[in-house]
């Protein structure tokens, strides 16, 4: 029901969400001379307002980082709620979409996607970072990998003039990260797109197969957006939940199902020498030696406030470990999952619920990855390695690695995080097997599109931001041509 207090916006195309999908779509549509409105639920923060790590966490993360995948084990899944979406709080790691994955998507070829990938990479300044940015975390990992003959490489990042602040995940304090609020959102605004922050879209009005308007709330009251076309770019969890809330589940049976993430954990190692892992790019390097079995490793060094809660210890023992912060190194391991989860419509003011029970194959791969990282750390000279695996939380010799791998394994033995959700509104031709078509239009609706991570049909095995941006760019160009 609409009241007189509605503020109304009229435009040709309304884009909801300013993350990797929405910002790129808005910029491409505005560039094609469309009258575009970009709506973002979170606030915009200038570089100089980023404040402390705690400030960044409280302000820029959805639910202050407590977004959960409910299941065995429950996992936190960090999502951004700020201008730029999750790109503002990610580790800035860039990977091209894996060609073998794109080949399986049938309605799209890698060659067709490649020009969009290259365009995106150029705009966000994706490049291999130099070794001098990588810090002590890289030095010890390189030493361990060299000893075991395992290749380790610096990763691609969307950075410009990085000053090694070491806090990419909490808002770059020097504006080096070329996330959406520093690239595509300003591009969209420069082309005449109106950008509204703190505007939360809550409802959609429909007339048959046509969306008439979006309604929501801002700090100034309720609002309504009327447009000819609507693009949902809320993210892989909120977008399907929003559609499920509007009862699209019956006509699109695949909606919200098939959620895939990268279940991940971190391995922390204690050295006698000073590492100073916080003085480098947190996710600077990666190991893809075991990518063939779906196991990938990437650096992940964190502020002590995030590193220690996941490490065992209490009282004076914990204080001793905290005092050794400069002697720690940390590396992450994630798996390309076989598990399928599910997104449900939100209740009680919560925008979505997600269910995900880690399967035993993924748990085995995680343990395999932890074991290999532990061996690398021991080869590099680590005194003790913290595994994050409850039955064997610390390892300090190769014999113990063998014991670690022989222990009974259950998914609940891990304390995990989840990253890179995809697959909840997958692309495809058949409405029974997919939610959007290859041009990212929702099946059975005339003017509703989804352009975010949810359209990626399966887990990529790599960080997905370039893939999301490329698909959104392709979808938006196609929409601009057809409109």
């Amino acid at each position, binding site marked *: 029901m609409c009241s007189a207090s509605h503020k109304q916006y009229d435009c040709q195309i309304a884009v909801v969400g300013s993350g990797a999908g929405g910002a790129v779509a808005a910029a491409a549509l505005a560039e094609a001379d469309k009258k575009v409105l970009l709506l973002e639920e979170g606030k915009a923060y200038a570089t100089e307002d980023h404040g402390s790590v705690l400030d960044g966490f409280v302000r820029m993360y959805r*639910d*202050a980082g*407590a977004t959960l995948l409910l299941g*065995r084990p429950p996992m936190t899944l960090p999502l951004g709620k700020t201008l730029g979406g999750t790109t503002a709080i990610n580790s800035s790691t860039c990977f091209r979409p894996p060609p073998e994955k794109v080949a399986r998507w049938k309605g799209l070829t890698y060659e067709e996607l490649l020009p969009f990938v290259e365009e995106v990479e150029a705009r966000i300044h994706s490049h291999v970072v130099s070794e001098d940015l990588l810090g002590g975390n890289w030095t010890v990992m390189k030493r361990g990998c060299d000893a075991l003959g395992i290749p380790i490489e610096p990763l691609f990042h969307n950075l410009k003039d990085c000053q*090694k602040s070491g806090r990419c995940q909490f808002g770059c304090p020097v504006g080096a990260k070329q996330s959406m609020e520093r690239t595509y959102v300003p591009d969209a605004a420069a082309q005449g797109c109106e950008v509204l922050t703190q505007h939360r879209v809550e409802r959609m009005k429909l007339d048959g197969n046509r969306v008439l308007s979006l309604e929501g709330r801002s700090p100034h009251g309720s609002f309504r957006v009327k447009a000819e076309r609507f693009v949902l770019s809320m993210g892989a969890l909120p977008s399907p939940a929003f559609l499920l809330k509007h009862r699209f589940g019956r006509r699109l049976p695949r909606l919200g199902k098939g959620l895939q993430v990268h279940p991940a954990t971190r391995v922390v190692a204690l050295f006698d020498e000073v590492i100073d892992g*916080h003085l480098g790019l947190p996710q600077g390097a990666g190991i893809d030696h075991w990518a063939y079995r779906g196991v990938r490793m990437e650096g992940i060094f964190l502020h002590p406030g995030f590193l220690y809660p996941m490490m065992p210890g209490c009282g004076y023992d914990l204080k001793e470990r905290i*005092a050794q912060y*400069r002697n720690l190194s940390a590396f992450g391991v994630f798996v390309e999952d076989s598990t399928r989860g599910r997104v449900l419509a939100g209740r009680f003011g919560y925008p979505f619920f997600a269910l995900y029970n880690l399967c035993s194959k993924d748990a085995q791969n995680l343990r395999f990855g932890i074991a290999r990282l532990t061996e690398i750390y021991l080869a590099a000279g680590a005194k003790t390695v913290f595994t994050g695996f409850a039955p064997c*939380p610390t390892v300090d010799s190769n014999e113990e690695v063998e014991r670690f791998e022989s222990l009974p394994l259950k998914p609940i033995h891990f304390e995990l995080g989840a990253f890179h959700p995809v697959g909840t509104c997958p692309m495809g031709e058949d409405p029974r097997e997919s939610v959007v078509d290859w041009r990212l239009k929702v099946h059975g609706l005339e003017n509703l599109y989804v352009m975010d991570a949810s359209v990626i049909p399966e887990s990529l095995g790599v960080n997905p931001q370039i893939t999301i941006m490329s698909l959104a760019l392709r979808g938006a160009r196609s929409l601009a041509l057809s409109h």
Partner: protein
Amino acid sequence: MNKTSSAFRPAEIWFRRCMLFCSMAFGITGLFFLLAGGPLPKWLDTLGTGRSVMVPYPVAAAGEGAFWRILSVSMMAMLTWATWILFRNPRGNAAWVQLILLSKLISSSLYFFFFVGTHQFPHLVGWLTDGSLFLLILALWIPASPGQNVFTRKERQILQAAGEAWIPRGGAFQDGYKDHAHKCLQEAERLVLSQSALTQLASRVLLRFIDFSPLLTGVSLRRLRSLHLEGRIQSLERMESHPIHWLRWPIFASKLNVLLPFLSLEEIQEEIGYKEKRASHV
């Protein structure tokens, strides 16, 4: 006393609505008991006679009904008044919630036991009515209870007790959680305040849960916040290495609320070499 509804948080607004409803319902029921309450068990008995398992309710002896009616009307009057003042000001009269909850818990439990013993339909009705009311009031009170704060006083005590156990004074460096408790608790509240209402509720429930960690781990029969430091450390250590995942997990969630604010303090960051080194490089 005369707060407008805009001065209340959404959870308090829902609780006040419930209290207004209860106040009206208790008032009307009290009047009904006074004027026509005598034959009520008989009417309920009639409804229940169709069910084969039900046993007829015994007829009260002459004059006995009036005695119980007086008691029930006076109880209803008290509940009407208590729920009314809670509607007016839930923050200022929070102690009365415990009275109402206690009353409903006792009555629903007794109704249940009497029903199990006698299979009389009026006891089943009483159990279902008072049991539902107990659960409803409890469910609405938990999110409303901190008033304008994030945590209740008890929850702040639990967080501080856990904080002092995780980061005691002395050891590898001098400062402990106790030395910065005020600032750390403020920051923990800011952290939880930025969560959704449902997650805030979960964070508070987890805190309450770890208060029972000494009991759950067999360290002591006392709760965490009333235990000495060594006992608290032992209890939290056992919890976080517990083989049962659902006992371990609340510890990690609450540990973040303690360690993140503490390790974000400037002086602590300098102490452990995070801040100083950053400054020299950037």
